[in-house]
């Protein structure tokens, strides 16, 4: 019974209903090829949301992911222009490293200086975007300047699905293992669940938060290369405002903003929900301008839902003013 009521089941049902409704008007939408296309299109959101989940679980938030993505993507594109023959493996390593470094900057400020994460990442968000402008003077890097192997990698087909989709699958599996089976994963849950208790069990709260920021940054960097290669263009404003979609995916997926609660599968479904909505809108002939309002409404409904289901069943004897905590 509890299994039926779980967040994951409800979300999965919602996604199925959504697909069913769209299919009644446009059967081609649920064809396997199209579903794979929708999954691939949602892959960047999935990868970023899984990183964001780790951060939110430790009671932090990373609003700089989209700017990190744009900066790392731009650096990858510039490296490609300078050295077109560099193998994709090297580019991937560089993307992961730069992303991790940018995430580490956030992490250090939160860990060592104890600055609220929202302030840190609001700041680094604008700084990262500004640095792209300093690097490029506002110029774009277009498809014809990139090498075919650079842009082709995320789109190349493996067993009927583009590499981009497979990377999202790989990241999901790795995160599943990390969160459930490693000391780091369990520390992340412990720090978010009860930081004081975590300290007494020998977990370094700041260091764990730092690690979460590095994970988030690393995945943002990886997505940066994939994004730039997939769309074959790099400029200052790519993925502008995408950080909100990422937070939305987490919140819809049942990750509690108060930390400590949330699952990889939930986050994955949260991202897929947004992805299906985004891809279904044009099919059912709704203007894409509705997208922003819909994801906003989805965040609010999801967070209200989270709060209702998370409320303790016991009798409240002393009313607390800080029910948000």
């Amino acid at each position, binding site marked *: 019974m509890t299994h039926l009521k779980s967040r994951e089941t409800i979300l999965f049902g919602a996604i199925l209903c959504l697909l069913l409704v769209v299919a009644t008007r446009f059967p081609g939408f649920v064809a396997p090829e199209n579903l794979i296309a929708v999954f691939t299109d949602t892959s960047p959101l999935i990868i970023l949301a899984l990183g964001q989940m780790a951060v939110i679980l430790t*009671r*932090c*938030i990373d609003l700089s992911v989209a700017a990190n993505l744009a900066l790392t993507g731009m650096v990858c594109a510039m490296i490609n222009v300078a050295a077109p023959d560099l193998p994709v493996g090297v580019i991937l390593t560089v993307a992961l490293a730069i992303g991790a470094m940018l995430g580490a900057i956030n992490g250090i*400020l*939160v860990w060592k*200086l*104890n*600055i*609220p*994460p*929202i*302030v*840190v990442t*609001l*700041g*680094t*968000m*604008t*700084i990262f*975007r*500004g*640095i792209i*402008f*300093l690097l490029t003077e*506002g110029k774009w890097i277009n498809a014809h300047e990139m090498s075919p192997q650079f842009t082709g990698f995320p789109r190349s087909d493996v067993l009927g699905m583009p590499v981009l989709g497979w990377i999202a699958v790989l990241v999901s599996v790795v995160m599943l293992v990390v969160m459930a089976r490693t000391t780091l994963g369990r520390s992340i849950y412990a720090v978010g669940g009860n*930081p*004081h208790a975590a300290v007494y069990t020998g977990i370094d*709260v700041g260091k764990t*938060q730092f690690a979460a920021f590095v994970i988030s940054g690393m995945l943002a960097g990886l997505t940066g290369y994939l994004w730039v290669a997939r769309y074959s263009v790099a400029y*200052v404003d790519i993925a502008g405002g995408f950080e*909100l979609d990422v*937070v*939305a995916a987490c*919140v819809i997926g049942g990750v509690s*903003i*108060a930390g400590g609660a949330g699952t990889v599968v939930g986050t994955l479904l949260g991202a897929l929900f947004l992805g299906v909505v985004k891809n279904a809108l044009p099919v059912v002939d709704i*203007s894409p*301008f*509705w*997208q*922003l*309002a*819909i*994801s*906003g*409404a989805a*965040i*609010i409904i999801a*967070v*209200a839902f989270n*709060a209702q289901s998370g409320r303790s069943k016991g009798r409240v004897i002393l*009313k*607390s*003013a*800080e*029910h*948000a905590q």
Partner: protein
Amino acid sequence: MSLTDNAPRHIPDRLRSPLQDKLVSWESLLLAVAIAIFIVNSLASPYFLNAWNLSDATFNFTEKAMIAFAMALLIISGEIDLSVAAIIALASTAMGVAMEMGAGTPMLVLVGLITGVLCGAFNGALVTKLGLPSIVVTIGTMSLFRGISYIILGDGAFRGYPSSFSWFGQGYVFWVISVEFVIFALLAVVFGVILHKTNFGRMVYATGNNATGALFSGVRVDRVKMTLFLLTGLMSGLAAICLTSRLGSTRPSIASGMELEVVTMVVLGGVNILGGSGSIPGVVIAAFVMGLVTFGLGLLNVPGIVMSIFIGLLLIGVIALPRLWAMWRKKAG
């Protein structure tokens, strides 16, 4: 939010004298910075020390500062509103719709203010009635409010506001003193009095320092928070009127990213982002500092996006430096 330090507050054996207190306060430090920036600017550009140019410079911060005053109170009470720029977009769109329907200037102003208040009420109700964390709620409403603007406007724009409407953003009271600057100055006084001289102001501090303690002392915490959300919405509506009037048009992307600058202004003004402390004079000086920095860099032909690096560094720097300083002193002593 991150872990707040739960260590008991440091209580000094002897209080500093009032004069000493004033000299080393955040506000006087900020004032010194403002004066330094002013001097550097007047040396760096020959166009800086000109009454009309300086008057133009005030437009860099007046609209943001209007919101920052209300935001300061909200942050002191322990909440935050990231949807303010989106409220501007929605209020501006509502005014555009009203204009299309033939509303005159007084009606437009009313529509702008009411839209702002309604948005604030929506945020406030979600936070106080449902007990949701304000940061997520307002990240959600930030998309929702601006999203509604996009639904109404798409890639279009409203133009052709009545000429009398342009008074708010383009009018001057006398000589170089603009209407917006007068509104800013009046609001600074009003908010200063509210926060520092009234019961309500004390309740705001009490709520931010210890909400449960405040509740048991008879402060209606939820009502205080609701009032502050309404106030922030109202100020965003007012800023929407000024901005729309100044630009003379409405696009759904109006004021995008302004929430960041407003929060930066508040934090730079010495308001604790975790709530409980801060002052209006600090925010006023911070408004001048940010206005002077952006204006000075503009005169030196620095592009807007590079200025945003400065703002980002400023935001992190003002919080990081005192903490680094404290760490360094701990190590040295």
